[in-house]
């Protein structure tokens, strides 16, 4: 091998070794790198009651209820397999709504209700004009009614 090729193979070998080291570290810390846990993971006992953590999923349709004081909100976060009741006092982000992604930050009470100190809306990667969204909704409704 020429010195040039030797240098190139050394660099590439070093990079490959380092990349595998990083991959091993990342897979070892896999569970700690998630921003939020899902309701199913809580049902499996992955989150401890009383500890501060985040739970994420979709806001279940029809589950949002506002309390009589006007600022307490209760809703359920679901990953379609399990749902977790959440209670929150405070202002909600604009994009918060039924069937939308949300991440709640707080503690799980012993009675199984998640007491949120903060609620974030999670946005998905779809971008379209309102007319297109309307058309998509109509098409889905038409497909639904054909099935029934």
């Amino acid at each position, binding site marked *: 091998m020429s010195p040039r090729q030797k240098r190139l193979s050394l*660099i590439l070998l070093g990079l490959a070794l380092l990349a595998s080291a*990083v991959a091993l570290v990342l897979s070892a810390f896999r569970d700690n790198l998630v*921003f939020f846990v899902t309701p199913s993971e809580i049902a499996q006992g992955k989150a401890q009651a009383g500890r501060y953590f985040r739970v994420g999923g979709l806001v279940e349709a029809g589950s949002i209820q506002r309390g009589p004081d006007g600022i307490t909100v209760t809703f359920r976060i679901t990953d379609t397999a399990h749902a977790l009741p959440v209670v929150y006092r405070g202002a909600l982000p604009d994009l918060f709504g039924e069937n939308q992604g949300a991440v709640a930050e707080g503690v799980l009470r012993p009675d199984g209700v998640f007491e949120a100190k903060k609620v974030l809306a999670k946005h998905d990667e779809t971008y*379209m004009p309102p007319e297109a969204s309307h058309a998509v909704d109509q098409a889905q409704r038409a497909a639904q009614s054909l099935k029934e």
Partner: protein
Amino acid sequence: MSRIDAWRAATETKMRSPKSWWRFAAPKEFFWLTGKLVPGFGWAAALLAVVGLYAAFFVAPSDFRQGEVYRVIYIHVPAAWMSMIIYLAMAFWGIVGLTLNTRVSFILAHALAPTGALWCFVALWTGALWGKPTWGTYWAWDARMTSQLLLMFLYLGYIALVHSIEDPRRADRAGAILAIVGSLNVPIIYFSVQWWNTLHQGASVSLTKAPSMATVMLVTMLIMTFAAWSYSIAVALARARTMVLLREAHTDWAQKAAAAMIAKREAE
């Protein structure tokens, strides 16, 4: 003659041949070529940015859920893409430089760093401004944002490292190694939204699936992306030209080129 020897001989002939692309690895030829390229990319950047910004504000429709605030993607996404690609380019030039011992490769890596850092900052900043109304927070320590912040520190670290070593050849090598090692962070940024639960949404545009964006929005974003590419190339090459002149200040051609530049500026 073995096949490797034959390949090496062919490569060396190519580098000397006046018709081959390899000759631009020589500082003088590089200076001449980039002198032709910089104005072209500069004008392309200006033109594309004007068209892209017009489309971003007046042609592209508002989003069905976010309303107007989504328009930040026309800056945010190209900036984030550029910040990742430029770091990879720096690592690439680092590998080329360490392998072939070509000075211009290291200079290209140095010249790219401030532009990459700028894009990285713009991505973080516009992301924070978008995050407040959309998510309800400026910042969250999720995998995407944390790894992008790490990229910012890698850029700043690279710039600081290269400037802290006085011997340019040692600075070149140290910088190249940092760029190569740090480039491992780029796939982590890119795939973070797939590998882990993050607050940041997944990719709207990728090579493996149809884009989940309306066509007008996508085209506008691509125009802005090409503008960002042209700007980055123009600025990085212009910076590299100055660095080449400084490094080659002991040569005849560099002194003549510098004198010609000064004379031209004085005439204007």
